[in-house]
């Protein structure tokens, strides 16, 4: 049986949502409650069957869907959602403080005052905030936070941004004019999705590699949504294209390499691990390989071996 309490919790908030916002669209409800329209209609049908004894038409909750707009009546006893459980209150506090540490967005003062109102309405937390703070430590992303504030302001106002960006893959610092479209956090970093004037395409940039940022007075029209969806996620592994690289990690690094999320394939060969990856630039890979030292062997392509040899000789000349 699918989680009935999750569904009940949703229904107990869905009813007050509609009561407070009569005529709300199906679209808005399925977005807020993170469910498909099909599930939403099932939920509304279920609400329609509930009410007070003796469950005659006059006792049941009334649900009307008119032209994609939803109306509910005869449900005054469900005018407010259920109170928080202690764990929900702790969870909300934890998530608020994590957001401040990770992004500083939109402003920690707004979050703190919102939390203050919630605390005032609900009374004290069962687990003190001090206890929560001492049990979880989230590294503040200081460099990213400095840039994120400005980026989110330009996102709000659809302003063209000028930035100096360090491309790790090509080891290159360049100036660009971009149209910021969205921000995403994952694997410990913030990524900016933006239309890039240099390449004429939507690209993904790592926010901590933005050296400077200037919001211009120029505004832009966002591209249609489907266009935006086409850009690859910064977290997906490239499965094809670019240069195919095969590496063999020694037993000392095999276990570690297995955890890395850049390889499209990893095969054990005894205690060794043979990994495949698709790279659209080799420069960054040379740098990665330098750190692994003699614990990795390049199986192919020969070009990468040649480039690494050249680079090591260069470095040796610095140290001799």
């Amino acid at each position, binding site marked *: 049986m699918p989680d009935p*309490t999750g569904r009940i919790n949703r229904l107990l908030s869905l009813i007050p949502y509609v009561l407070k916002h009569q005529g709300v669209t199906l679209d808005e409800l399925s977005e807020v409650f993170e469910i498909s329209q099909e599930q939403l209609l099932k939920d509304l049908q279920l609400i329609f069957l509930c009410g007070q004894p003796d469950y005659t038409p006059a006792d049941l909750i009334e649900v009307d869907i008119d032209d994609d707009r939803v109306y509910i009546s005869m449900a005054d006893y469900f005018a407010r959602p259920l109170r928080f459980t202690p764990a929900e209150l702790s*969870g909300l506090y934890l998530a608020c403080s994590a957001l401040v540490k*990770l992004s500083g967005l939109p402003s920690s003062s707004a979050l703190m005052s919102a939390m203050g109102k919630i605390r005032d309405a609900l009374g004290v937390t069962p687990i003190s905030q001090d206890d929560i703070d001492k049990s979880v430590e989230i590294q503040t992303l200081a460099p990213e936070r400095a840039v994120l504030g400005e980026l989110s302001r330009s996102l709000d106002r659809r302003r063209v941004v000028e930035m100096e960006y360090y491309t790790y893959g090509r*080891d290159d610092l360049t100036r660009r004019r971009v149209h910021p479209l969205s921000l995403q956090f994952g694997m410990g970093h913030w990524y900016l999705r933006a239309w890039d004037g240099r390449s004429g395409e939507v690209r993904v940039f790592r926010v901590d590699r933005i050296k400077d940022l200037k919001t211009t007075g120029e505004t832009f029209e966002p591209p249609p949504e489907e266009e935006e969806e086409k850009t690859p996620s910064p977290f997906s592994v490239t499965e094809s294209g670019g240069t195919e690289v095969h590496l063999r990690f020694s037993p000392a690094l095999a276990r570690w390499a297995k955890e890395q999320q850049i390889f499209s394939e990893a095969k054990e060969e005894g205690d060794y691990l043979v990994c495949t990856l698709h790279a659209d630039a080799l420069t960054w890979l040379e740098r990665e390989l330098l750190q692994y030292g003699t614990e990795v062997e390049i199986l192919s392509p020969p070009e990468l071996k040649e480039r690494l040899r050249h680079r090591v000789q260069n470095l040796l000349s610095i140290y001799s």
Partner: protein
Amino acid sequence: MNKAERLINLIAMLLEAQRPVTLDRIRNSIPGYQQTTMASFKRMFERDKSDLRDMGVPIQVEQVDAFGEEVGYRIPKEEYYLPEIEFTTEEKVALLLVNRLSSGEVVPLSREAGAALLKLSPDLGDGSRLGQPGSLHCKFALQAEPVEDLTRLWEAAVRRRTVRFTYRSMGEGKEQERQLDPYGLYFDRGAWYVVGYCHLREEIRSFRVSRVESGVELAHPAVEGPDFKRPPGFKLEDYSRVLPWEFEEGAEYEAAVRFSPKIAWLVERDLGEVYRFEPAEDGGGILHVIVRNGEAFLNWVLSFAEDAEVLSPVALRGKVGDRLLRILDKLGGEGDA
């Protein structure tokens, strides 16, 4: 009869009741309870009641007559209803962003936070009611560690409960059953770690949560707890801000590394608050780093290739040279380009 429907009807009835409702009336009124025998109805009702109490529904048991022979049930409205909260637009945007974070299950208790935000949703509305501010174009990718593990570890840390799990350590390679007194959790560079007293190693250790192979369970589920005390001087930050080359291996020394203008700003941003950074006129700079593990430090320096140069100590410069020669040797003698 659908269980959700039955439970919603039960809540509705007990909320509206002027006086406590007896079992008989509940059975006779609510569809879904009637078809069964009295005994199986009672079992069913007990299960429903405990499900609802787990959800936080305040079901009260009260006497219905002066002799206390029969009891009834009711839900006091003042204990059930979440008070209405008026948020400003900024506060709404902030809380909608928190909702994004909880959808990504980035932190412990994310599901609970999401449930709380769902309860606030009538007071928050959605982005369209706030004119779709750009900061709501923020998303959080799903965090790799299972949020159940994070939540259990966190609860064990605040309730001082010993946990057990099987762990695949990087060094030893094989899985081992561990017992841990968890003191706290930290998030660093995209990964979660739990710090605590390890019963196997008999010292305070950090564990990467993604390397926990089994689920996390209480070591002594039968007792109430707390199972341990956190040492009075313990500070989570002493364990959470350790860089790879700070793990104790040998003697501590200071190293100076020069970074090129192309990269120095990145290094300064990342480590300028931890170590002394001496800016140079060309836009580059020198970072003075405390090193305890030379090999780990060299891994990091070499990841910058020609953009970083170890200036001192001389012995460390020598080690860089040795490492480079070994790499060259391994690359083999296929002729020089």
